[in-house]
């Protein structure tokens, strides 16, 4: 039972890292970016290539994935995303679905449709028992790393100059601009950072979630659930939503596998009906 909880938390942590970039674009910039999973997949493939072709060790491949996906995000933001900010939600949805389709077919073309694997270092594989809980070393690693990231982000968002400028730009971009805050550059950096996190999440998730060209479609719904359920005004909202989702999904798959992903979707619908603005939305009617 506790093993399920542990695995679920690890899974939720990865979901959080994957999704919190999306919560930035979607919540802060009010842009519905369904193509977020494509950046995650990109990060995953960068890791695979870096390890197989360049022989980088796993720990070095992770930052590579982060920076590669972040760079891709920066470039794409400049080229194609920016004109879409002012458009309606429908246009944004169509646009990003188009990107998803392209990335799925493109990855298939470049990398083949087979599942990719990475070789974890020895000290990260295997599991040990602590008081009856089966602790996977890799899962423990994920929990520690992603937990640290979550704290760092919460700190950066609320305590640093960058964070306060970002929050100002989000609350009212026009006023922020008037105060001399470089809103466009801030958004571009944030977008790149979010994409980078997606790439990192994709790299970390190869072991747990698998990596094949359908990744952006398969997990799109998970990211969206995390963000919509968690709400977008805080870091902690998506964090708890990701935990809840991770534990529920893992528990569902271990205990009643025949139901598949049914539990997650049902959970999402129920949560969205009861809390249309997210779990921790501040008093909005």
């Amino acid at each position: 039972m506790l093993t399920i909880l542990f695995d679920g938390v690890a899974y939720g942590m990865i979901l959080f890292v994957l999704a919190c970039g999306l919560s930035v674009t979607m919540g802060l910039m009010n842009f519905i970016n369904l193509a977020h999973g494509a950046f995650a997949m990109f990060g995953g493939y960068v890791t695979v290539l870096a390890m197989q072709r360049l022989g980088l060790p796993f720990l070095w491949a992770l930052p590579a994935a982060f920076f590669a996906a972040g760079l891709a995000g920066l470039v794409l933001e400049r080229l194609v995303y920016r004109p879409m900010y002012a458009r309606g939600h429908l246009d944004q949805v169509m646009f990003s679905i188009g990107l998803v389709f392209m990335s799925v077919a493109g990855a298939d073309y470049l990398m083949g449709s087979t599942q990719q694997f990475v070789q974890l270092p020895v000290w990260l594989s295997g599991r040990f028992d602590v008081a009856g809980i089966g602790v996977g070393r890799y899962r423990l690693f994920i929990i520690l790393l992603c937990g640290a990231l979550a704290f760092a982000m919460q700190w950066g968002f609320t305590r640093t100059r960058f964070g306060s400028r970002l929050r100002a730009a989000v609350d009212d971009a026009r006023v922020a601009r008037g105060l001399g805050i470089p809103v466009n550059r801030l958004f571009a950096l944030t977008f790149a950072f979010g994409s980078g996190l997606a790439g990192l999440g994709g790299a970390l998730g190869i072991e747990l979630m698998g990596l094949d060209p359908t990744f952006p479609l398969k997990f799109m719904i998970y990211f969206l659930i995390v963000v919509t359920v968690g709400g977008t005004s805080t870091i902690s909202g998506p964090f708890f939503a990701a935990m809840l989702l991770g534990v529920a999904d893992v528990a569902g798959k271990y205990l009643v596998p025949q139901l598949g992903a049914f539990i997650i979707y049902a959970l999402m619908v129920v949560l969205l009906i009861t809390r249309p603005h997210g779990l921790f939305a501040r008093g909005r009617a």
Partner: protein
Amino acid sequence: MSAGSIEARVRRSLYGARRWHPAEITFWVLALAVFFLLPRQLLILNEIAILGLFAVSLDLILGYAGIVSLGHAAFFGFGAYAAGLFAKHASADPLAGLAVGMGAAGLLGLLTSPLILRGSDLTRLMVTLGVALILGELANSLGGITGGADGLQGITMGPVLGLFEFDIFGKVAYLYSLAVLFVLFVLARRIVSSPFGLSLRAIRDNSLRASASGVPLHWRLVAVYTLAAAYAGAAGALLAQTTQFVSLDVLAFHRSADLMLVLIIGGAGYLYGGLIGAVAFKLLQDVIASFTPQYWMFWIGLFLVLFVLGGRELIHGGIKAVAVRIGHLVRRSPT
């Protein structure tokens, strides 16, 4: 100005929208004419008619009421399974099956309509998507009823109206689908030009103002959502009946996404958009699939991106110009 004259003007403008334009008549004559002109393509034409009906259904909620849905395949698939199961276990009569498919999907629409009344665009997108995904999972796991991943096999259809037997060339199938499409289209056309349809447009343009001027917001949205669901169910039932097979694919996400594309190609909010979009989409799919069958998805994605980024006005301008041209030609030719 007296109240009476305003009422008369409103009535006149409503009737004006109901009058059939020559270009519309041409459109339907053409749709019937291709039956004789392209006898080898009837199976594809049948698919186009079904997709067109499906797109009209989405147009009713998206184009007229402004509800974004990413899960319209839920109703399509539900109607398809309902009609397929009805044919398999109850009766082989196509029209009864169609009614069952429509009724079942409409009921589902009615039951799920509270979900779309809350929250923003984003919540709606997610919830509609969620409903479709849930149904997909259910259809997959209830293999005993739906056939699971193997699909629902062993559907046999009786002749339409007891007279016309389905054939392998799709002759009866196309005419049947076209007839259903036409009847439902005329009905939809009537509905959107009625006061009810106008109130939907008011809700779409400014829901706050619409509710302030006395439009019962929730009930109107529930009604149109149910109607659109029934239409989608009819399209699904047609597919199940004419192909005599239902697979999990009818509930898949890409079906909803493709449908959006169809409507966006054709233009939302004037009913014909869905039909034109369906024709264009199938032609496009055919052309692309003939030279790169495996990576068709890439091109459709690229098309979507370019389309949203800039090409939309171009294409719609073109379509409108052609429609006007045809209208002129038709009006001139009889004299």
